[in-house]
């Protein structure tokens, strides 16, 4: 009787430990499958980068097999769609630099000043109203800014500069500047808010005014974040497409005059995407060469800003 009871208990224990073991091995299997799936999700980002680089290199190679790299980088005339063809990319780069430069001239002072206001002056209630409004500004689609530049800002500017053409770098650059204000302001504000209170208090203790604290203590301490914000905003302006495609024109021109019609690298890619340029022709491959150059320029700027933040971050 006792023995049979013990025996049955033993088999129950065996069975349950067996099923426990089974559950455990099932769990282990499920865990490793899930872990691999999640890893695959994360690796997709690497494949995306590889995809972008390979795609651009392979297609641009098709272009550079017919046009010399030297001509591409040093030529000052861009006319792939006309005979005789010219493949000098400098006018497109110049157009990009011109509009992005105007945009930064607008966005940097305004963005920085509003970052100082929000982080050093504004009361909580003001901040809670102003910040979401700036976020809305950042969320407006770029095609809307393009519409605004062409149909509102350009006519206003034409009142000031009567001989300005409809499509011009100034209007596009100004509106692009408004577009990147939120980026400059929120990134710089984050950097300023991170400056410890003790530094400010010490400066106040020495009798500094609020302005002196903001410009001589907080800004220098936050300079790595501010520089990063500046570079990221510039890189964003380089890559911005719709505003320039709509408002800056489509005449590649190496000029510093913001009242003239120019073409940026991005706007050129859009122009070819919209047109009837047949696949496989040298003209068609130009968009990959231009795209590659744009990708490398923005990538270098992004990498530089990350490196700069790491290198110059003040640790408190």
């Amino acid at each position, binding site marked *: 009787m006792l023995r049979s009871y013990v025996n049955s208990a033993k088999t129950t224990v065996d069975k349950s430990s067996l099923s426990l073991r089974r559950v455990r091995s099932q769990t282990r299997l*499920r*865990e490793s499958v*899930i*872990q691999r799936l*999640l*890893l*695959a*999700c*994360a690796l*997709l*980002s*690497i494949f*995306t980068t590889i*995809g*972008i680089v390979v*795609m*651009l290199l392979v*297609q641009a190679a098709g272009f550079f097999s017919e046009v010399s790299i030297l001509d591409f980088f040093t030529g000052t005339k861009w006319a792939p769609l006309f005979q005789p063809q010219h493949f000098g990319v400098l006018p497109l780069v110049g157009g990009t630099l011109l509009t992005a430069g105007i945009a930064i001239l607008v966005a940097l002072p305004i963005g920085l*000043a*509003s970052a100082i*206001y929000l982080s050093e*002056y504004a009361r909580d209630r003001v901040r809670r109203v102003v910040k*979401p409004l*700036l976020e809305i*500004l950042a*969320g*407006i*689609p770029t*095609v*809307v800014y*393009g*519409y605004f530049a*062409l*149909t*509102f800002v350009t006519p206003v500017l034409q009142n000031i500069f009567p001989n300005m053409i409809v499509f011009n770098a100034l209007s596009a650059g100004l509106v692009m500047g*408004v577009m990147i204000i*939120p980026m400059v302001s929120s990134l710089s504000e984050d950097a300023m808010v991170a400056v410890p209170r003790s530094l400010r208090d010490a400066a106040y203790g020495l009798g500094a*005014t*609020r*302005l*002196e604290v903001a410009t001589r203590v907080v800004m220098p301490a936050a300079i790595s974040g501010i520089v990063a914000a500046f570079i990221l905003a510039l*890189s964003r302006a380089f*890559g911005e*497409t*719709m505003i320039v*495609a*709509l408002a800056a024109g489509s005449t590649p021109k190496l000029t510093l005059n913001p009242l003239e019609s120019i073409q940026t690298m*991005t706007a050129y*890619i*859009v122009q070819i*995407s*919209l047109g009837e340029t047949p696949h496989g022709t040298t003209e068609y491959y130009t*968009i*990959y060469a231009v*795209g590659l150059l*744009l*990708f490398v320029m923005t*990538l270098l700027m*992004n*990498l530089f800003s990350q490196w700069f933040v790491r290198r110059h971050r003040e640790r408190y």
Partner: protein
Amino acid sequence: MKNDLAFKRRLRIRQLQGSSFKVLFLSASLIGIFALAILLVDVLKDGIGWLDWQFITSYPSRKPQEAGILSALFGTLWVMVLTALFSFPVGVGAAIYLEEYAPDNRLRRFIQTNINNLAGVPSIVYGLLGLTLFVQALAMGRSVLAGALTLTLMSLPVIIIAAQEAIRSVPEAHRFGAHALGASRWQVVRHIVLPSALPGVLTGTILAMSRAIGEAAPMIAISALVYLTFIPISPLDRFTVLPIQIFNWVSRPQEEFWHLAAAGIIVLLIVLLSMNAVAILLRNRYQKRTEE
């Protein structure tokens, strides 16, 4: 005595500087908002008269009076739903891996740097990738699917970064508690981390989606010129989206089409603002719950 006087004069100048710069800083932060107001008023003024039921339910047309955004509206809905279906699970999966699974090694740092860089790649470059990879190499044609996959790749970095932040904000103690009770890693993620990170993840995803939906550049590379007088009924159909339609109308010389563009912009902004409103509601509910 003389020094004291000089100091007082200097102090008055400094204080004056201080208060005038305060006004300057304040007006700088109002410039952006002022520009936003002008932009909205301009669009409303130009477009509201053209926004009616006929505009919503008509196909594009050569005659501005008869033109509408039906095909663009449905195209946008199609792309939005597909992009959300693709990018949400993959984005959250990648974020979970990076935050909960990956050891702090080179691979993890490499993936992280890579994601940060991808977030900075210009949208038109994603358009070129989609055109070359999905439209041409994988022979999807200029289809809804190709467009949605392109937007997925474009919005993934933003979604991953937002989801990572939400996951990171779940207190470490919750994880330890569940592990102490014998929960496996996935069980902790599934039952502890994800439920409390979900509102933050959703908010980030919706914001990334609304950014993606407004993008015209990559969609123009994928879909090219538009004159579509049908609604896509399968993922492999040709499509157009609101930003392309708006771009198309703005780039025409006749002013009537500009009014159409403005009306289209109003519709697009309504779609985007309602998405943002949902995101903000989610965030507020979430914040309340964590405060309790």
